[in-house]
């Protein structure tokens, strides 16, 4: 089977799953419509509809090949960054630093991935943005809460640009015997981590009783966490045929990225709690903002990238 055929099968499978979900949502709405509109079912159906749009967008990006995928994730980064920086308290003196973050650092990071310069894209934000953006803010001379402002801006760039860019960075890995299949690595990462989110939600709604972190998130339960991570790990093992991994390796890696995804959701919830908001934004109907949808991928992507790079590339 060629990589192209595998991608085709994958999207056909996703289409079938979404069609079933759509029908199930429609059936639930009809069954419970006598009791009046239910917020849970409405939100579920909004999520399913949005999933269809997102899968369609990813499919279009895959059709566009490497440049399509890079542009898609650059767009995701841009929206994630504006959501993050909206919630921090920058001042007038940070204006240039913010402009550089949006219009220089972000495009440059994705350009470095496009030209596959690993030596620079892996340190560009942690080293060079880290050093130069505080210089720009310092030059403007405003010192009030300076430390918090530069630290939070850097954190935003790390989360929204550096970590997100590790998804398209998978395209730059050269794995022997896996030529032309790198889009499948992206498909595996995004599919497994997002499936874990969905399965944690489903298990939590069905069986959830005991909250994992009541201070951080009312919706994260032990039943959801265990059921979701284990079933998504099983899915990861079952999807080994789209990866360079054996079934056992695929399951193990799926387990690691599912845990990272769970903790990503937890960390991002802690920030939302700190800032007194429920969602990061409002661009994705039913889900909230871009960061609400991407939080798990953000924490899983760099780990998945480095595990694959360390053990599978020469």
């Amino acid at each position, binding site marked *: 089977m060629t990589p192209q055929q595998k991608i085709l099968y994958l999207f056909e499978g996703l289409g079938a799953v979404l069609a079933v979900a759509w029908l199930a949502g429609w059936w639930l709405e009809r069954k419970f419509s006598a009791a009046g509109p239910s917020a849970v079912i409405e939100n579920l159906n909004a999520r399913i509809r949005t999933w269809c749009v997102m899968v369609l967008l990813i499919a279009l990006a895959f059709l566009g090949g490497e440049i399509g995928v890079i542009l898609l994730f650059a767009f995701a980064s*841009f929206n994630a960054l504006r*959501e993050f920086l*909206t919630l921090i308290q920058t001042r007038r003196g940070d*204006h240039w630093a913010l402009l550089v973050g949006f219009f220089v650092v972000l495009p440059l990071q994705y350009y470095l991935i496009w030209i596959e310069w690993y030596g620079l894209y892996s340190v560009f934000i942690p080293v060079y943005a880290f050093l130069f953006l505080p210089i720009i803010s310092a030059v403007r001379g405003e010192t009030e809460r300076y430390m918090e402002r530069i630290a939070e801006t850097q954190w935003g760039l790390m989360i929204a640009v550096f970590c997100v860019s590790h998804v398209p960075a998978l395209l730059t890995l050269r794995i022997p015997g896996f030529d032309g299949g790198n889009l499948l690595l992206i498909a595996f990462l995004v599919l497994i981590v997002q499936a874990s989110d969905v399965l944690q939600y489903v298990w939590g709604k069905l069986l959830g009783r005991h909250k994992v972190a009541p201070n951080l998130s009312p919706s994260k339960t032990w039943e959801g966490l265990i059921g979701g991570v284990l079933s998504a790990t099983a899915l990861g093992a079952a999807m080994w045929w789209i990866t360079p991994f054996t079934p056992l390796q695929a399951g193990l890696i799926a387990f690691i990225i599912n845990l990272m995804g769970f903790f990503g959701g937890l960390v991002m919830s802690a920030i939302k709690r700190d800032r007194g908001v429920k969602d990061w934004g*409002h661009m994705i109907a039913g889900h909230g903002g871009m960061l609400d949808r991407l939080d798990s991928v953000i924490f899983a992507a760099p780990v998945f990238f480095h595990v694959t790079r360390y053990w599978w590339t020469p």
Partner: protein
Amino acid sequence: MTMPLASLGREIAGQLIVTFTRLITAPQSDWRAPPSPGQRIYFANHASHGDFVLIWSVLPAKFRRRTRPVAAADYWDRGWLRRLIGKGVLRAVLISRERVTRSNDPIETMASALDTGESLIVFPEGTRNLGSERLLPFKSGLYHLARARPRVELVPVWIANLNRVMPKGEFLPVPLLCTVRFGAPLSLREGEAKAEFLGRAQAALLDLAPREWHP
């Protein structure tokens, strides 16, 4: 300006401004009380020259066509571009901030704009708030306007973040997200004193402001 060509041009230019504003600020409008087609005076906090363009952009299109911002003549009546946008496209009611004289009474100007049945956007702080106070004390204009046209409802509007998108003295906007929050309408009570009314209006507006993280 009633020629069809001019009104078509205004419609297109208005749509361009709305699209541009939405692209940069991705504004979320949050209506605490549902929007109503009736005549209203929207009164908002003021920190950026873009404030009324933002409010204007998030209003439903059919209300937007019936809503005019009240703006300072000394800023919006200078230069052909500002005049074109301010007077031509947004149909701003320009008032002079100089001393009130017989020929220059801003309350009279605003009241006669209301008499055509259209809604107004006003900034009762009187000037842009560039300091660290959340809200400057209201000028008395809002009270005098409410007394001159007591049947028109007053709607508080809190604009969050636009001053960070475009701080004073900068020319490139940072694409942060803005929120425009519309509160429940209020009106002047029978026999309500000036200080009492202005205090109530300020409190209603501050009530819409997001929680402060760094007091």
